[in-house]
């Protein structure tokens, strides 16, 4: 007996909605748990005090500074390099097997497990080059991790700019670089910014690389050569060792809020840039 497709559809849809509901429940559960257990911990003193007693008491100020420091360094290193490379690869070279290999290489490296970068950073920066556990080692390793992402997203953004724009510029007598800076880059800016924001988001959550390169020092890092623990690393240590559940949740809540803020900023930035340049 063949079932009427319209009736069959009801069952299928019900099944799919059920699965979806279940999935969303799990995902929402995660956000809700962190919020309920963590948000009460997020007070100004939590944010401004240094951790004491291995993180059992006090706040997470030093980790916030360390996170900002390392992320900033990584972005400052990876962005010019990444965007510049993307510009060169799309504007100054012809699409051929070389560019395809480079792109494939960037894709592969974007997928490399972060622990391998942690191993690499530990052996090269911490040990061989003698930087020790430091913001520098962490920032360099993180920059290497972010580079493929920024190259890829920038490239896509630049390639998405219609070739007609460039032709019009050339026909008007503009030079290549003028074309790039006045038309191509502004058009691609939303995409490039998204890529950089994405990278910032990834940096916030990164633990495997930074635990082994920037270390886990509890105090606020001042110089590039100071060690520091990021919020994610701090959370990992607090949670794994059972040092302080409330503080762990608090750190997780702040991480979640930071990511939310970054997404919001990225989104609104993208909207504003798109309005301005398209």
């Amino acid at each position: 007996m063949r079932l009427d497709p319209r009736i069959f559809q009801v069952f299928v849809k019900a099944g799919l909605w059920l699965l979806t509901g279940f999935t969303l429940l799990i995902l929402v559960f995660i956000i809700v748990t962190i919020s309920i257990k963590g948000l009460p911990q997020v007070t100004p003193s939590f944010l401004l005090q240094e951790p004491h007693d291995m993180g059992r008491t006090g706040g997470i100020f030093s980790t916030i500074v360390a996170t900002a420091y390392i992320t900033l360094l990584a972005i400052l290193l990876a962005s010019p390099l990444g965007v510049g490379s993307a510009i060169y690869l799309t504007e100054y070279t012809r699409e051929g097997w070389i560019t395809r290999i480079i792109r494939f290489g960037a894709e592969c490296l974007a997928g490399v497990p972060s622990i391998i970068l942690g191993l690499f950073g530990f052996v090269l920066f911490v040990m061989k080059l003698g930087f020790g556990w430091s913001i520098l080692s962490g920032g360099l390793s993180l920059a290497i991790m972010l580079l493929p992402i920024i190259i890829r997203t920038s490239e896509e953004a630049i390639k998405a700019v219609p070739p007609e724009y460039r032709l019009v510029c050339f026909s008007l007598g503009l030079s290549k670089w003028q074309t790039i800076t006045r038309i191509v880059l502004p058009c691609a800016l939303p995409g490039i910014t998204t890529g950089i924001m994405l990278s910032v988001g990834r940096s916030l959550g990164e633990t495997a690389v930074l635990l082994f390169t920037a270390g886990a020092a509890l105090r606020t890092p001042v110089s590039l050569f100071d060690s520091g623990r990021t919020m994610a690393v701090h959370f990992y240590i607090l949670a794994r060792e059972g040092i302080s559940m409330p503080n762990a949740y608090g750190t997780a809540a702040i991480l979640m809020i930071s990511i939310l803020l970054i997404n919001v900023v990225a989104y609104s930035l993208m909207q504003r840039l798109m309005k301005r340049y398209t």
Partner: protein
Amino acid sequence: MKKEAFIERVLLFLALSSISTLLLITVFIFLEGLPLMAHVGLKKFLLSSHWAPTKGHFGILAMIISSILVTLGAMVLGVPLGLACAIVLAEFSPEKVKTLLKPTLELLAGIPSVVYGFLGVVWLVPLIRDHLGGPGLSLLAGAIILGIMILPTIISISIDALSAVPDLYRDGSIALGATEWQTVRRVVLPAARSGIITAIILGMGRAVGETMAVIMVAGNALKIPHSILDPVRTLTSNIALELAYASGRHREALFATGIVLFVIIVILNLTATFITRRR
């Protein structure tokens, strides 16, 4: 004109720097790891399950199997749920729900893996231990946590792939009398196939590469698992557990493990490229 040439040179320099950085890592990993593979013998390295690096035994079979099983488990959980979600959100729900959910998914994708791992330890592990048996820290726990972790990735990219299918296809199918579901199953999904497969492969890559969450919930025992309730140690966990103190041959062995992981990722990426190319 001179300024142009100068700028071009600067950009070339940047591009070359990027490429050499990326090459540096690959070369470094291979240079450090290959000698060990040669020393131990590729077959012994990959097929022996005896890992006792301080005593000179470098067999990573147990970890290869564990990584494969954990990833497969994650896919078994993540792909059906993720696809179902993507289909429902892209095809069967109003615009408002979509605009609400996309940022939520991005938020979830941004949550650090260690948070997932921690929630797994607090909620999932006791559940497994008390109701299914074993220590709770297990292959199952690892697979479930990883599956949940890759959901946002799979859902996001699949939604993009589905949304990219032109409405023309859908309208045509409905006009021919098909139901919504028939349209989805026979027209939209096949059309979005390459995007969805990319989503799955990216999710797989993320699962293979995940370290911290797995260390927290999988138990890290060095044996080949006999049941999903057995504790396991993946290739990535092994590197993380030992890299701080490994030196000499031991460290080379960790790099060699890195080579194996790298090769796996390259194969996955090649497959993804191949499939999307065939459109």
